């Protein structure tokens, strides 16, 4: 689905990460993880085209996203749904209008159908009844959930979530995990999540990449449940075990 080759990300002369090579398969729930400030959100921004790589290329289903000129990228972008860290809802619009905007723009549905879809998406994230509230009138956590609802508005093929669980209470976080699993199973969406929440990572992710702050490149890729005990990289095991890792990994299962 998504291939990343030799990606180097930099802000001017400061290299955030170099030589990243990984694949995200269709229907993966792929987690981008790493220490604070290692460039997880930056990687996400590169994947969705908000930043250009210093080196390397990104492919979507074999097509080169990086070399496609900006005006032609609409084709790719239509298949994404993006949720930003603090929701990034358009502050002059109500929640309903926020979710309706991508629908009005990209579909021919009439107003009634759009309203129904909007209510449905809000219900999925537990915000029924808040259609006419403005983003400033609801809490930060609710803003995030509304952002997720908006990201899902067009039933995207690939859903990108930037720290969806941060700031959510454990029950909301669990509900979000269930929602993500359901989306993958019923719609066949691929989900790419930047997150720290170990509970969620182990519950739903089947593939991941660990960005190492020290070496400034990838530490490991694979299923976090395997990496926790069997990764050869101590930093990865330490991260996934919350600091309890022993210095030797247990051997991989046959």
């Amino acid at each position, binding site marked *: 689905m998504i291939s990343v080759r030799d990606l180097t990300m930099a802000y001017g002369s400061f290299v955030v990460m170099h030589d990243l090579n990984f694949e995200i398969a269709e229907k993966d729930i792929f987690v981008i993880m790493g220490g604070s400030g290692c460039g997880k959100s930056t990687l996400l921004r590169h994947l969705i*085209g908000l930043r250009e790589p210093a080196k390397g290329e990104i492919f979507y289903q074999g097509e080169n996203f990086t070399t496609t000129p900006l005006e032609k990228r609409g084709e790719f*972008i239509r298949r994404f749904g*993006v949720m*930003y860290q*603090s929701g*990034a*809802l358009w502050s002059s619009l109500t929640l309903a209008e926020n979710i309706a905007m*991508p629908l009005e*723009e*990209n579909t021919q549905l009439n107003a009634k159908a759009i309203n129904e879809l909007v209510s449905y998406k809000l219900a999925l994230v537990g915000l029924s009844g808040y259609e006419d509230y403005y983003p400033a009138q609801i809490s930060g956590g609710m803003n995030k959930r509304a952002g997720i609802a908006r990201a899902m508005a067009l039933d995207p093929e690939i859903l990108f979530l930037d720290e969806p669980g941060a700031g959510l209470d454990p029950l909301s976080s669990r509900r979000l995990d269930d929602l993500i699993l359901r989306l993958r199973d019923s719609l066949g969406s691929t989900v790419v999540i930047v997150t720290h929440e170990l509970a969620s990572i182990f519950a739903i992710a089947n593939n991941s990449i660990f960005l190492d702050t020290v070496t400034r490149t990838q530490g490991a890729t694979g299923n976090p449940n395997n990496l926790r005990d069997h990764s050869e990289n101590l930093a990865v095991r330490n991260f996934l075990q919350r600091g309890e890792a022993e210095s030797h990994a247990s051997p991989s299962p046959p």
Partner: protein
Amino acid sequence: MPPDDSAAPRARWTHAGGAVTLELSGDWLQGGVAPEIQGDGPKSPPTAYQTGSLGRFDSTLPAFLLAQLRSLIPEKSTPKPSLSGLPPNLVGLMELALAVPEESEAANKPSNPSEIKKLGKFSLRLWSNVLSIAEFTGQAMLSLGRFFRGKARFRSRDFWQILQECGVNALPIVSLISFLIGLILAFVGNVQLASFGASLYVADLVGIAMVREMGVVMTAIIMSGRTGAAFAAQLGSMNANEEIDALRTFGFNPFDFLVLPRMLALILMMPLLTLYANLVGILGGMIVGAAVDIPPVLYWNETLEAVDLTNCFLGVFKSVFFGVIIAVCGCLQGMHAGNSSAAVGEATTRAVVASITGIIVLDSAFAAIFTILDI
């Protein structure tokens, strides 16, 4: 009541053989006096501490110890310094403070650039500002082109709101300032003209000055401060909240969506406001005229004779360009603003300064062009 002497904080270094001992005594408190340091400055960290006479302490003591240890231990050396002799709770605090080595990359080396370097950096920045304004203006023009071909998308509700905010809501301040400008022009002009017995020509003075220059330029400057700043602040806040990125990733073009309605609103409203300002300014002059016994009807007729259609048109023509400058500067600074609240404030200031500069420079250019064309 000041603590008595025996509780004064004191640190004493002693060297014996290779061993360095640091004796800590007294009360080390934030509200107390500065510690007294005795003994020769050490070259290596203490091998042992003596805290027999140590009284109460708060974070002043571990802060002092940390600073001492940092200055004595060479960077990136692995053995942890000895903490023997310190009371257990202090040991815990010191271990915590020493646990994560200082991120040497993170420390901002204070740079002291020479004046030449500063001048160089300033020029480079100035040049890149000019480039980004040119690029932004180009994008805005492309957006306008898309609009006329019916391909630009923005919310019409946004457009009407912006139009009202730029147009109708600006009337009070434009009225006040134009009226006073007209008044002042007439008053100052009359001081000279009266000595020739030519007070009537105040009408010509005010009419031509307002219509050709003052109406347009003052209105543009008012709108810079009012509307240009508002655009910068709105877009700057949206940028900080990632709302503009969200527009991009949902397939909307931020230029079409945000900049275009603002530019169109100003292009429509500036000529109207300018005409209005001209009228109100002439009215102000008329009041002064009345005060020097020029009947309003006479004043008006004189004004009409002096101000021909060309003059009027030139002012309105310039106002359209000024409107574009205000929109471009405001929106550019907003979209390129940084992510902090201070950044939004800076963006607003830069927007206003840039648009006022642009307006005056363009006005001078027009003055030159019109002179050459003999208009």
